[in-house]
């Protein structure tokens, strides 16, 4: 049996799957149902002074017939009375003592922070998450990403929270910055026990083409929303990994952004997250998705020989490096499996128009299987990416006789590079 117990800066949960602070974690009834489905923790929908939301809040990005590969929203923090939320937090903790209940908070003044932290902890919060990330509405009021984008403000408010909290404090970072590292370091200086990232990305999801108004449309207007869902995973992974490999940082991370299945979760964990949070996939498919997430993660860990979650956390971080450390003499070429090829020629057009013109229709016209001119193939992977048939195109390593040499070794030590391919 593998042990999925997760520890994020002192917040312990039976597995690393948490609901992110968002509509699926809006109320006690919902969170208890989620725990019944198997979720290990939940970050309560951000508390603060209750707001008023607009009608028409979400937009979806569709691609080639797949709905909502990206998602955005213009809703604000909780619109429920604070007392109701606190009462329900207490109820959930009473009934689910082993599950992690983290309370997300967003207020303005030090007094307000002190007050709401005390009341959250009284209600039974296992941890706090400071929402420094919301990119719409709240930031115009000097909160959310307005805080997350200013390292000094971030540090100061994190300091207040630490001063008044007796439970672990996570700082939820906004991705709407050019480099995440200074913001993670600011949270660390403020005393945070860990960080959560990413919150949503400033976005316009699309236009209503008949009215020429962005979505989601509120009467005749819209505004920038927060982007999330499967499409943002690459951005989130990069930010998580950038902090995880930063030697000055070293805090636990709760990874968020586009987690839709156990494979995504493995990626976040291996790149340095101790837990993962999910919002959009639950909004689109419901709490029930967690069953497969848990099974899939367990199966993967068993197969790979990991017994405890900690062994997986950060396992891929050392392989995330600088471009200058990559071996320029490493060479691959595309190989097409003639038995699997169906002759769609997508690799031909992609290589011809989008890469290095080395894949051609069979010159003899005898077969529909294209021909790879290996002497020209730069090993870019584009053909493999467009091929619709699994395992039909593989990128095969070539022994070119050159010893490994990085750009840094070339520049600083004169290491010898192989001749360039595909340059005309």
């Amino acid at each position, binding site marked *: 049996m593998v042990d999925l117990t997760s520890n994020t800066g002192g917040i312990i949960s039976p597995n690393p799957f948490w609901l992110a602070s968002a509509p699926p974690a809006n109320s006690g009834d919902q969170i208890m149902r989620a725990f019944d489905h198997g979720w290990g923790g939940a970050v309560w929908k951000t508390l603060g002074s209750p707001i008023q939301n607009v009608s028409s809040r979400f937009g979806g990005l569709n691609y080639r*017939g797949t709905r909502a590969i990206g998602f955005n929203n213009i809703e604000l923090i909780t619109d429920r009375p604070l007392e109701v939320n606190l009462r329900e937090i207490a109820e959930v903790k009473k009934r689910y003592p082993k599950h992690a209940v983290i309370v997300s908070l967003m207020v303005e003044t030090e007094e307000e922070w002190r007050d709401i932290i005390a009341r959250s902890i009284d209600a039974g919060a296992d941890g706090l998450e400071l929402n420094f990330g919301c990119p719409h509405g709240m930031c115009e009021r000097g909160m959310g990403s307005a805080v997350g984008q200013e390292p000094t403000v971030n540090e100061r408010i994190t300091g207040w929270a630490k001063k008044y909290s007796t439970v672990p404090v996570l700082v939820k970072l906004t991705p709407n910055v050019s480099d995440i590292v200074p913001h993670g370091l600011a949270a660390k200086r403020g005393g945070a026990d860990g960080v959560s990232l990413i919150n949503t990305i400033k976005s316009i999801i699309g236009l209503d083409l008949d009215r020429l108004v962005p979505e989601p449309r509120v009467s005749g207007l819209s505004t920038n929303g927060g982007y999330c869902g499967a499409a943002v995973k690459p951005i989130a992974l990069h930010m998580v990994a950038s902090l995880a490999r930063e030697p000055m940082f070293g805090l636990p991370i709760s990874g968020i952004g586009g987690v839709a299945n156990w494979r995504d979760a493995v990626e976040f964990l291996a790149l340095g997250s101790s837990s993962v949070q999910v919002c959009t996939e639950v909004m689109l498919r419901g709490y029930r998705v967690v069953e497969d997430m848990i099974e899939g993660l367990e199966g993967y860990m068993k197969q790979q020989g990991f017994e405890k979650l900690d062994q997986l956390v950060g396992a891929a971080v050392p392989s995330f490096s600088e471009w200058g450390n990559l071996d320029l003499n490493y060479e691959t070429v595309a190989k097409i499996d003639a038995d699997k090829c*169906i002759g*769609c020629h997508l690799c*031909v057009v992609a290589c011809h128009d989008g890469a290095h013109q080395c894949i051609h229709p069979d010159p003899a016209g005898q077969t529909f299987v294209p021909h790879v001119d290996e002497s020209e193939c730069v090993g870019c992977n584009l053909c493999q990416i467009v091929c619709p048939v699994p395992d039909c195109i593989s990128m095969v390593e070539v022994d070119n006789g050159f010893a490994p040499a990085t750009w840094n070794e070339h520049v600083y030590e004169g290491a010898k590079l192989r001749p360039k391919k595909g340059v005309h």
Partner: protein
Amino acid sequence: MATQLPDNRGEVVFEDFKPAYTDAQAVTEANRCLYCLDAPCIDACPTGIDIPTFIRKIATGNVRGAAKTIFDSNIFGMSCARVCPVEVLCVGDCVYNRFDESPPIQIGKLQRYATDIAYAKGEQFYEAGPDTGKRVAVVGGGPAGLACAHRLRRFGHAVTIFEKRDVLGGLNTTGVAPYKMRADKSLEEVDWVLAIGGIEVKTGVDVGASPSLGELLADYDAVFVGIGLGPDSPLVVDGETLDGVMGAVDFIEEMKLQPSRFGGVRHAVVVGGGNTAIDAVREALGLGIPEVTMLYRGTEGGMPGYAHEWKAAKVEGARALWQRQPVGFEGADGKVTGIRCVRLDDRKQPVADSEHVVHADLVLIAIGQSRLLDQVAALEGVRADGRRIVADEAGFTGHPGLYVGGDLKNGAKEVVNAVAEGRDAAVAIDAHLSTSGQGA
């Protein structure tokens, strides 16, 4: 020209065998298309429709553009979407057929989706070209003749269609199975094609009787002949003139254009094993005839009709008698009561003492159609090979100004072939007229 058909035609009992796509179904299917480069489906289409391009346009919601891509190659895109044997053409060559068990893209249904929407919206994509002063006669108002006429108008030539019947559309109107397309749809298409304007239509004109082909060649700058095939070939056995014995193509035409008079039939036998025979079997079943049997001289594996069509016929209740040859008919009061048959062996030779009677009160002969080669072949420079008029790829016969296309040229293929040949002949005629100097 007749454009109104009786509402109580025999064929109106038939529903579409392949139902239309909804928007959602069409977009879902379109998104499955891989958008191949040099796609084999295009090569498999006699009119060479850029199939991946029109499908991608459906996927993005550019349905008008999808229809335009179709019509650019095939002005009969609406009917071809319904009547083409896609299983052996585009769909049969979809690369998905090579991909494990993945179902091929339903190209016909997608084409129907795009073209139906264009029709419903009254879209018209083409205008006649500037008047060239040249005049072309088109003999036969079937798919070949109409496709030729339409393309000629785009070039700006004046066109007159001479059609023997009082309806246009050829076998698309009078022959294709109603569960693929009913006659009124074909006439709707004819109107849509003629909407380019400037095509004069003369129906009820039997070219050959009057005027003769020679007269047309003298009066016009060029002549295109697309008269298709002649009447059903007879068996030439005793009793063939009995009431209740008829040609299958005649039966189909009657069912498609006139009120049904086959209500009382108990047992129909269709003689033949080709596609017309299978259509007639399925149509007889669809009209409610309780027992319908196909009687073929070869074996099931050797029949020339499409396997997918025969399979559908069997599902609908068709029976078959293999390796039988009719040698005469039995009748009472001038009406057929049965077919005298012999059994054939594997070399299609009669088996001794095997004569027996198969009961039938309707017999449809579907052993092929006669050829209308004589008057065309009689012209100087024209050759016929017994099945068809010999012509080059573009339909030029060798006789100056005389072009052919469709079943007359290819010996009987599909609507889509006739459309391609009519279109290509128009291109050749245009080239001929542009180089042949001013005036006739």
